[in-house]
């Protein structure tokens, strides 16, 4: 079984404890944060394991790249802390599991991996996505969502098979080496989680924003600036690849929309609240959503843009009620092409 590449000495010597002190959901003073953090590192029960909303942010906050969030998930699982009720956890493990029904499909560059979000395939259209191949379905689902369920073990068990499926049924037979990840979650899996657990990724993962930016630069002359103010809902998995967050700025600049200066933006982005609901912390989830949407609205944003479908499903209704239009990033960019 794959082990987390984690150095306890780095953590035990860390005085700033950024992973906890910068957390927007766990509120401890410095001494207490260090104490609880060190308990975690030593494999002991810690309040952090119960308080964590699994927003992934501490992966971004750690200045040492020592994977504090993956460690939290490891410890939750080892110590039997279930962030989400067990029946929901069990049903999700079955629902999202591989079906063993994958078939060989010829693809060609560029290939977009829709992951489990095959139902979003309709969004892969128009000028930006002309000529792309898509793959998707439960047999190539990255399973990273089980970080929210204290189930690193599920990812460890399934991911090697997922990678093998992608290669064997799609990329190898077609001689393709690059895989564009529709969802941050997949990109984070292949660029962060897999290396952290020593799993080799034999293809080159490409972030959707990166692909879109390249395409749109090629088609720059066709772009008509939109002139909107657009609030961006940064998804949790973006914390695993924070370098991609600036690509949103580039995309926005290209289509002529303004990313307003929000309070809950960049490294202070708030979770959409979906997993907090799943953890049955309804008041916190509601408060979180309220703060998030009010912050969006306060900027005068006309649109709220999403990359993660789950964030979209969670926030679309409150966003609409607040007078903004919820939209996926791919659709927003297509609007700049008059599509």
């Amino acid at each position, binding site marked *: 079984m794959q082990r987390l590449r984690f150095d306890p000495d780095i953590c035990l010597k860390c005085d700033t404890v950024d992973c906890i002190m910068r957390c927007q959901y766990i509120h401890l003073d410095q001494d207490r944060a260090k104490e609880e953090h060190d308990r975690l590192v030593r494999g002991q029960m810690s309040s952090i394991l119960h308080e964590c909303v699994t927003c992934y942010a501490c992966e971004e906050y750690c200045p040492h790249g020592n994977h504090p969030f993956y460690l939290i998930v490891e410890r939750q699982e080892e110590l039997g802390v279930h962030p*989400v*009720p*067990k029946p929901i956890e*069990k*049903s999700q493990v079955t629902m999202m599991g591989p079906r063993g029904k994958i078939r060989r499909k010829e693809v060609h560059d560029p290939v977009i991996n829709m992951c489990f979000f095959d139902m979003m395939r309709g969004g892969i259209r128009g000028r930006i996505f002309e000529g792309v191949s898509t793959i998707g379905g439960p047999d190539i689902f990255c399973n990273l969502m089980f970080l929210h369920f204290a189930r690193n073990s599920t990812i460890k068990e399934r991911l090697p098979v997922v990678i093998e499926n992608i290669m064997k049924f799609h990329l190898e037979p077609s001689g393709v080496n690059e895989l564009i990840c529709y969802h941050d979650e997949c990109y984070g899996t292949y660029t962060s989680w897999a290396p952290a657990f020593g799993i080799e990724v034999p293809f080159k993962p490409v972030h959707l924003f990166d692909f879109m930016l390249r395409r749109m630069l090629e088609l720059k002359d066709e772009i008509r600036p939109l002139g909107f103010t657009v609030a961006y809902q940064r998804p949790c998995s973006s914390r695993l690849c924070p370098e991609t967050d600036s690509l949103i700025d580039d995309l926005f600049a290209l289509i002529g929309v303004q990313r307003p200066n929000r309070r809950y933006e960049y490294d202070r982005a708030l979770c959409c609240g979906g997993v907090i609901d799943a953890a049955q912390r*309804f008041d916190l989830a509601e408060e979180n959503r309220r703060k998030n949407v009010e912050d969006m609205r306060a900027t005068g944003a006309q649109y709220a843009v999403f990359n993660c479908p789950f964030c979209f499903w969670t926030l679309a209704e409150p966003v609409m009620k607040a007078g903004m239009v919820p939209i996926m990033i791919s659709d927003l960019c297509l609007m700049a092409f008059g599509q």
Partner: protein
Amino acid sequence: MDRIHNRLEEIVGKDYVSCSAEERFIYSRDQGVQEPSEPDYVVLPATPEEVRDIVLLANEAKIPVVPMGGGLVLSGLTIPLKGGIVLDMKRMNRVLEVNENSHYAVVEAGTSQGMLDAYLRKHHPGLKHSLPDAPPVATIAGNIAIHGSGHLSQSEGGFHSEMVTGLEVVLPTGELVKLGSSSTVPGWFSRAPLPDLAGLFLGWNGTTGVITKVGIKLFPRQAHHDVLIFMTEDVDAAPDILFRVIHTGMAEDINYALSPKPDYLRGFQMIVINVTAHREDELALKIRIIRESLRPYFETKEAGFMPMPPNMKAGLLEVPQKALSKFADVRKGGGFEYVGAIMPLERIPDACRAGMEITERNGITYSLGARIIGRGHSAMFFFAYPFNRADLDEIRRVRSALEETNEASIKLGGIPWKAEAAGQKLILNSMEPATYTLMKKIRTLLDPNGIMNPGNWEV
């Protein structure tokens, strides 16, 4: 052409009588496992007077009359067990009156659930009636006659028969009578304070007369809706969970479900809670109160509210629910047996166990569940067994499961709902002798020639 056929043509017109083989075949069966039995005539009357004339003719000729609504009862109650006339009521499908202030509608007996719902949405958008989770062609009269239930049965007073404000009935001897307030004054607003004669026609499976009009209660149609699903693996926790949710007084409809499909829900008890409100903040408050009622469960992490994507939520907010209709054809081939049992809530865990044992023993698939009735006064527990009508062995196994389920329901302290003729005998065998005798006296009095749906409630 025989004499009766000619007389029927004189009553309803030649386009609305048939004794052709095709028609007799279609009307000889339903989607359940009961053996087919052909009628001699199929008739579609248009007025209560035509119904009366048909009943008088049947008395004269001593032939059975079997009233039929949507024909969706699944347990053979509209199969003419002893031949005779099937009285298909679908032409009598007008909404005659809606009283907004007094919250009732008067409909003809062939009016379908879908028709009344569409009519109310169009002309009285602030009102709704309680819809069963049946296809929209199910009729109002058919459903109240079998003590059906629906999405307002939890919060608004119980079985649909309890929502009846009055009836118009053709007695087996041909008299056209009104029951309830409309018998005495204009208006179909109440069965009280008169002697409650409507009960002579509710639950009798068409053996005491032909319902021609129904007064039915209407309720406010709220603008805001939401649905919650609470999951647990502990079958014995279900009654307490249901009790807690019921006692909040915040839920419109509460259903319990257990199904082996889809795979990710196998083994989980699902409590589906529908909430409605006039205002958004009212809806939020109701949801909050319901969630709080179950805090002791979800804090242990042994149970909890399931997060739902919008498409799943949208499906669960539909009234009637299409999921059951889809499940009905899961085996393909159009067969569906839906055995219900009315029972106290505390028997739900044992009913689940019994249902699973019976289906496993008979090698059939299932969906089990319950709708809470009248704020927890009882539950309509269902054992749904889909089957392929082309598979004779499967039909045999489902029939065996049906018989075992009826027996198990009574042993559990429940009573089979809309039971087929054999199930009715089972119920009668368990009935107090004095009650049985009273039923017999009533039938003999009302139907001296025994023409009304013979083979059912044979006392």
